[in-house]
């Protein structure tokens, strides 16, 4: 399978901040890759290293099979990047920014820019200084997509967007994905990762905790156990985490031997039992609480 992004032992330390340590990830062509971590975990440092904005102290970062240090221009010409908070030159109008970006890429993107702006309801004649945060984000989306890149790097791309625009955004991204683009998505919105991503990595304190398909991650994590018609669970119930009781329904995460779980549940009164896959947030918390032990 063709690899689009590969980092090997990538390490970047700052004087005060943590950065990333020995980070090795692989994003294959056609992946929609979720990159998940809390604030300061190292997501932005990783993205900036991939874009050549910062230089790692050690390790290797390759995009499209090329070293980012030596082939930066070649690599960047086929990347679309949406920053978490976009900044623009003062006094520009939306169409000025789109034109400038197209000129920097030496491409004519006028048709595509108009198409995307229409899809996102973005007025191309508005002054950027007068745009709301959400509209500035829409412009960032148009800038990232107008040249039809092979790799999209999205850093908290949907934050600040209303649900309708989020949908329009994902429609555009999925259309690009169907056309062959690979997507690298850094996000706090775990449901978004679960809904759209095929593979994901969790990063914690600058180190990779786990990297796998979203499906495998769901399997490897604890299961959500729900007991209906149940008031009470014995204290120190083995393997139960985060017990919640709502309206005679007891719910908890379980990881361990399921035969033992069923034996332990024989002493508990309940009317119904379900064991389901946890959602992405639970997976994330599971790996964060465990600190990667579950690998």
């Amino acid at each position: 399978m063709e690899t689009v992004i590969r980092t090997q032992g990538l390490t970047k330390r700052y004087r005060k901040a943590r950065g990333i340590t020995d980070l090795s990830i692989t994003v294959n062509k056609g992946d929609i890759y979720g990159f998940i971590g809390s604030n300061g975990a190292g997501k932005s440092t990783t993205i900036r290293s991939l874009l050549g904005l910062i230089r790692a102290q050690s390790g290797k970062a390759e995009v499209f099979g090329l070293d980012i240090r030596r082939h930066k221009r070649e690599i960047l010409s086929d990347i679309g990047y949406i920053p978490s908070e976009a900044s623009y030159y003062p006094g520009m109008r939306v169409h000025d920014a789109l034109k400038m970006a197209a000129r920097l890429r030496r491409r004519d993107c006028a048709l595509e820019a108009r198409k995307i702006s229409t899809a996102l309801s973005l007025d191309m004649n508005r002054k950027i200084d007068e745009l709301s945060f959400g509209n500035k984000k829409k412009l960032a989306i148009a800038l990232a997509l107008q040249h039809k890149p092979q790799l999209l790097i999205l850093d908290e791309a949907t934050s600040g967007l209303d649900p309708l625009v989020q949908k329009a955004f994902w429609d555009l991204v999925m259309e690009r994905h169907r056309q062959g683009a690979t997507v690298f998505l850094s996000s706090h919105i775990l449901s978004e990762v679960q809904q759209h991503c095929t593979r994901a990595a969790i990063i914690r304190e600058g180190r990779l905790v786990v990297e796998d398909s979203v499906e495998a991650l769901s399997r490897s994590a604890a299961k959500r156990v729900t007991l209906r018609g149940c008031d009470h669970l014995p204290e120190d119930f083995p393997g139960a985490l985060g017990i919640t009781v709502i309206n005679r329904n007891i719910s908890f995460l379980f990881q361990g031997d399921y035969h033992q779980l069923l034996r332990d549940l024989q002493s508990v009164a309940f009317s119904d039992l379900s064991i389901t896959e946890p959602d992405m947030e639970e997976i994330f918390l599971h790996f964060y609480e465990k600190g990667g032990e579950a690998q």
Partner: protein
Amino acid sequence: MTILRNEIRFHWKGTLIWSVSLSFFAILALVLYPQVAVYSGFFNSMVERMGIFSQMFNLQNMDVFEFMNYYGLENGNFIGLGGGMFAAITAINIVAREEGRHTAEFLYPHPVNRLSVLMQKFVAMVLQLVAVNAIFILAAHIGAGLIGMGFPQKKFADFHLSLFMMNLQVAVLCFGISCFKKRDSVVPGLGLVLAFYFLNLFININREIATFKYFTPYFYTDIGRITSNGGPLWESIGLGFAVSGAVFLLGMAYYSRKDLAI
């Protein structure tokens, strides 16, 4: 050329405002010349009695009211100090503001070479300096024409060439410093220009610190020195540019590898 176009587009108004302001004072000073010249004998004797102040502005042994000397002293200050400040303000942030205003995150994920960005910004900066100096020179000719006077061509050319070199030296130095900066602030540039200006005044008073003449570009823009030298002081200009050029090259080398703060 996209960066160059962008720089010019966003700074032409500021350049025009500086040019018009400085030119206004150039014309005003020239229009006042006939009235001031009437009292030249009185003013010249007063300048002789001014002692340290006369020395500070290098006025001794000079007919202050000879037309070119008058122009050099009056307008040398406008385009000298004003132009120096414009050069410093323009150059000190030209690179740093990409990080200071976070536009680096817009610009550098595009397939651009950092050195090419710097060179385009440098050319834009030089064009702005050329525009300010050219408009000022044009205004000087208009002012002289209004009072029916003309400039001695060689002396005028030598003087303005020296002033332009001074503006350029300040700009080159500040551009180099801008490559090391991460924040958007004009204070270091303005501080540097004022330090250069006052250093020249101190050198004029105290000849024992004359060695420092190579540290300030204002030394070689003095109309009296240009006149007595018979042309621009190329030794001072060369040394000044050697230092500024070194800072410029170091800044470029540093910027091409630095981690961008965004």
